[in-house]
C-alpha cells in the first residue's frame, strides 16, 4: 500500500528532477562557446547532485531515527552535533578554510569539498531540539529548565550564522521556536524573547548597509531601480513576464543577465516566467503535498523525538520555501534563501533529501511498529472463547 513516506520519496524525486531541468534552463547562455545539449542536462553537475541527493535520501530512510535519541554518553551524536555545528560555523572565519563569496563569509573549503556550515547547523539543531524536548518532556513548560537551555544553543548558532547570513539565522530561529512551542514551551515564554529577537535583528540590519538597502528596496524598489531595487524589480518582472501561460520552457528572457542568481535564489521567478501560473502552481502544490505527507507521518510517529524531529524538518523546508517565494514575488525583503530541492545547490539538496529520508524512516518505523502491534493482537481463531475462560 502506498504510504505517506512513498509520497515523500516521489515528491523529492519530482522536485529534484524539476530542479535539474529548471536550473539547466535558467543557466542557459547566449555565449556560443557554452552550448548546452540534452546530454549536458542529463549528465551535468546538477543531475549528479540530484542523484547524490536521492542516494542520501535512500540511505537516510534506512537509518533508525530513535538511535539519535537513545544513544548515550560519547556514543550520543547530540553533543557532537552541537559542538560540530558551532565549530564549523567558527571555521568560516579561519583564513584559507573559510572563504568570502559575494561579500559574505558563508563557505568553508576542505580540499574539493565545499559547503555552507549554516546548512549543516540548520539541520543539526533540529536533532538537538527534538532530543532535548523529548528527554525533558516533563519540564518543557518551565522557563529556566525547559526553554532557556535549548534557546542558549539556538541563540549561539543563530548569532554565528547571523553575522554572515541573517536570512538563514531568522529561518533557524523561527523553526527552533516553532519546534519548542510544539514540544511544550509556553507562548508567553517565547513572547518574552520577542523584544530581544527584534532588537538583535534590528541591530543586524542597522549595522549593515546592504541589509538596510534591502529593507529600503523592499518598501520602495522604484526608488533606485538600477541599484538597490534592481533584484526585486527584475524578479517581479520575471514573474510577471510571459503572461499566465508563460514564455515556454527555455524561453525566459530575464535569465539572460537581467535577473541575478537566476539558477539559485530566484529560480522560482524563472519557473513563473517560463511555465506561467501552471508551473508556479505545480511547485507550490508539490511543497504543499510534501508538507501534508510529512504531517501525516509525524501524526503517526510513536515517539515525541520523532514527531518533533519530523516537525522540525517540515517547518524548515516549508518556511524556507515560503521565504524564498515571498522574496521572489516581492512580498519580503531580499534574502539569500534557496528554494528547497529546486534552487541549484550541492549540500543543500543532499542535506534536505537526507532529512526527508529520515522522515521516510520515521514513517517506515511507525508502520513496522503498527504492523508488529497488529501481529501481537490475538486472532479470533486463537483467542480463548468465553466458555473456555469462564467458570462453569
Amino acid at each position, binding site marked *: 500500500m502506498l504510504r505517506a513516506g512513498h509520497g515523500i520519496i516521489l515528491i523529492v524525486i519530482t522536485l529534484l528532477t524539476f530542479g535539474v531541468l529548471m536550473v539547466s534552463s535558467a543557466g542557459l547562455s547566449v555565449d556560443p562557446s557554452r552550448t548546452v545539449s540534452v546530454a549536458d542536462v542529463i549528465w551535468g553537475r546538477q543531475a549528479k547532485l540530484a542523484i547524490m541527493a536521492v542516494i542520501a535520501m535512500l540511505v537516510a530512510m534506512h537509518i533508525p531515527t530513535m538511535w539519535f535519541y537513545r544513544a548515550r554518553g560519547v556514543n550520543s551524536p547530540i553533543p557532537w552535533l552541537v559542538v560540530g555545528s558551532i565549530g564549523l560555523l567558527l571555521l568560516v572565519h579561519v583564513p584559507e578554510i573559510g572563504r568570502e563569496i559575494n561579500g559574505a563569509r558563508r563557505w568553508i573549503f576542505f580540499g574539493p569539498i565545499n559547503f555552507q556550515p549554516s546548512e549543516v547547523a540548520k539541520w543539526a539543531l533540529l536533532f538537538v531540539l527534538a532530543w532535548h524536548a523529548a528527554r525533558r*518532556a516533563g519540564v518543557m513548560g518551565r522557563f529556566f529548565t525547559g526553554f532557556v537551555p535549548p534557546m542558549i544553543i539556538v541563540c549561539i548558532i543563530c548569532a554565528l550564522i547571523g553575522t554572515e547570513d541573517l536570512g538563514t539565522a531568522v529561518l533557524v530561529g523561527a523553526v527552533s521556536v*516553532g519546534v519548542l512551542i510544539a514540544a511544550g514551551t509556553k507562548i508567553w515564554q517565547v513572547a518574552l524573547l520577542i523584544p530581544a529577537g527584534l532588537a538583535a535583528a534590528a541591530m543586524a540590519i542597522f549595522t549593515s548597509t546592504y541589509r538596510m538597502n534591502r529593507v529600503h528596496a523592499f518598501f520602495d524598489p522604484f526608488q533606485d531601480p538600477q541599484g538597490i531595487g534592481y533584484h526585486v524589480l527584475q524578479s517581479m518582472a520575471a514573474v510577471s513576464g510571459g503572461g499566465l501561460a508563460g514564455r515556454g520552457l527555455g524561453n525566459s*528572457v530575464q535569465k539572460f*543577465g*537581467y535577473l541575478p542568481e537566476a539558477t539559485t535564489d530566484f529560480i522560482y521567478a524563472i519557473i513563473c516566467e517560463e511555465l506561467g501560473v501552471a508551473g508556479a502552481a505545480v511547485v507550490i502544490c508539490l511543497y504543499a503535498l510534501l508538507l501534508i505527507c510529512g504531517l501525516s507521518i*509525524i501524526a503517526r510517529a510513536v*515517539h515525541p523525538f520523532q*514527531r518533533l524531529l519530523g516537525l522540525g524538518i517540515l*517547518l524548515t523546508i516549508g518556511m524556507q520555501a515560503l521565504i524564498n517565494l515571498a522574496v521572489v514575488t*516581492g512580498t519580503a525583503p531580499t534574502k539569500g534563501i534557496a528554494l528547497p530541492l529546486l534552487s541549484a545547490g550541492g549540500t543543500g539538496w543532499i542535506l534536505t533529501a537526507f532529512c526527508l529520508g529520515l522522515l521516510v524512516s520515521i514513517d517506515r518505523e511507525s508502520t513496522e511498529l503498527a504492523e508488529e502491534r497488529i501481529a501481537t493482537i490475538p486472532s479470533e481463531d486463537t483467542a480463548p472463547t468465553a466458555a473456555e475462560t469462564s467458570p462453569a
Partner: protein
Amino acid sequence: MTGPQPLHERQMQRATAWGRVMVIGMILLMGFQLARVVQLKISPNEKLAAHVGSTMSSRPEFAKRGDVVDRRGRVVATSSLGYRLFVDPKLVHDLGTIAAEIAEAIDADPVEIDREIIPRRDRRYVVIRHLLEDWQVDAIRRANIRGVGLQPRLVRHYPNGELAAGLIGMVGFEHTGLGGMEHRFDQQLEPQSGRLTYLRDARQRALWIEPTGYEPGRSGETVQLSLDLVIQEIVERHMQNVVASHNAGGGRMVVLDSQTGEVLALTDILNPREGWEEQTEDPMRERHPALGRNRCVTDPYEPGSTFKPFIWAVATELGKVTLDERLDTPAVGVYRTSRGRRIRDAFNHGNATWHDVMTKSLNSGMAIVAERMSKQQMQEAIARFGFGQRTNCGLPGESPGIVTSPRAWNHYTQTSVPMGHEIAVTPMQMVQAFAVFARDGTLPRVRLTALGPEERALEVTNRVLSEEITRKTRRAMRDVMTEGTGRRAQSEKYQLFSKSGTAQLPKRDGGGYHERRYVASFIAGAPYTDPRIVVLCVIDDPDPEIGYFGGAVAGPVVRDVIDEVLIYLGVEPDQPDIEQPMVLRRP
C-alpha cells in the same frame, strides 16, 4: 520499541496539533504567494514595466537617399554612409585624458576636443566630429575607448561642386532637402529606413529576432533631372564671362528643349558690385550657394522688345494687320498715339511693313497695331502664352510675374505691353512662351525632370497659335538675325530666330525707372529649320559704359551657347553658308 509514556503522549498530541496549525498556515501562505504570482501576471504594477525597461532593442538600418542624376545619368547628388564621433562623458573613465586619447587616434588637436567635452560633461552625447574619414573610423574602432562612440549617418555628396548648385539645392542636418531639387523631390528621394527589432540580454547582445522583427529599408528613388551637366557647364561658363565682362549686377539664362519642355540648363548669377545702389540681394545665397532663391522663377523682369513676337503673332492671327502692310511709323521723331502718347523708336524707320516692325523692333509699329486690338484681345493674348501664371516647374518660390489687372488696364497699358513694358515676366515663363514658336504653335509644359518616351507620347499640349502664324512669326524672327537687332548675334553654324530686348531697370520703390540702368535680354531658338532649343539670356543691370543693348550684350552669349549646345547634341548646322562653303568660293 516500547509504547509512549503518558507525558510523552501529551507532548506528541501537542506536537501534532501545533504541527497541523503550522503546516496549514504555511500552505495557506504558499497559496497567498500563488495568488501574488497571478496578480503579477494579470495586472503588474505600471511602474514596474517602466522601471525595468524593455528587453527589446531596435537598430535602424540605414537606407540611402535617392540619387539625383542628370538627363544622361551622370550623378549630380548621391549619399553614402559616414560616421559621427561622439562621447558619452558619463561612461568615460577619466575626463582628463579622454581628449588626448581621441586626438591621438584621429590626429586632431586635443585642446579643441577638450573644449567640446568639458563644458558638456553633464550630457550623455557630445559630438566631437560630425564626419570622420575612413582611416579615423578605423582608428577609433581599434582604440576602443570607453565612452567614445561612432554613430552612423548618411552623407550627401555633390560630385560636381557648385555646378548647378542653386538648382540642385542641398540637404540639411537631418538629410532632408533644404532647397532646389533636393527640396522639390524630397518625398521621392527620401529613403525609408529599415529597422531590426530583437530581444537582447542584459549585455545588449541579440538573443533572437521575431519573424516580424525585421523591416527592410528602402532606398529613395533616383530622380533624373532634365538638366544636362555638360550644357549646364557651358551655360555657367559663358554667363560668368559675360557678367564679368559687362560688370553686370547679375545674369540669368535658361536653355529649354523646345520639343519636350525640359529645362536643359538653368543658371542665375549675382555679382555684387561696390558703389552701385539698389543691387539685387540674396542673403541666403551668401550663406550657401545652394540655398539662394532661383531668380529664373522668383524675380520677374521687364522683357522689353523680347515680348513683341507674342503680340505680333496674335495680332497677325487676329487679322489686325498683314505682314506686308505698311504702317505709319515715323521716319524721324516720335510717334503719337490716338491719345497723344509719344512713342519713340530706338532707330527710326519710316513707313515700315509689319514684318519690318519685328525685324527693326519698332515700338511705334507695335503701338499702331495695339490700338487696333481691343483690351480683351490684348489681355487674352498675354494669358494664352502663360504670362501672369506660374509655370509650376517645381522650383520653390515661383512668381506668376506681373500683369496689369483688367480694371487698371488703360490706353497707356495697351500701348506699353506690346513693347514689353508695364509687364514683368520670369525667365522660365519667357522660354516656355517662346517655345511656342519653336514648335507647331503649342505651349509646352516646362519641367525639370527628364521625360521618358511614354510620358512624351502622353504629353498634352495646349495650342496657342496656328501652325501657319507660328511659321510666319518664326521667319520674321529669323530675319531679325539678318536684317534687324540680332545681327551681332548671328551664328555661323546655325540659323537662329530671335528677339532682343532692352528695358530700363525699375526702381525698387516702384517710383519709375533708373536713369541709364537697364535689363538687357536676348531670346532665341535654333536651328531655324528644325528647332531644338530655346535659349534666354537676361543680363541684369550691365554697366552702360560697356554696353546695354540686348542684342549686343546678351545676343552673342546666346549665340555662343546655342552653337556649343547644338554641336554637343549632334545637331547638324543649318546655315546655308556652312552647308555649301565650296560653292561660294567657286569662281
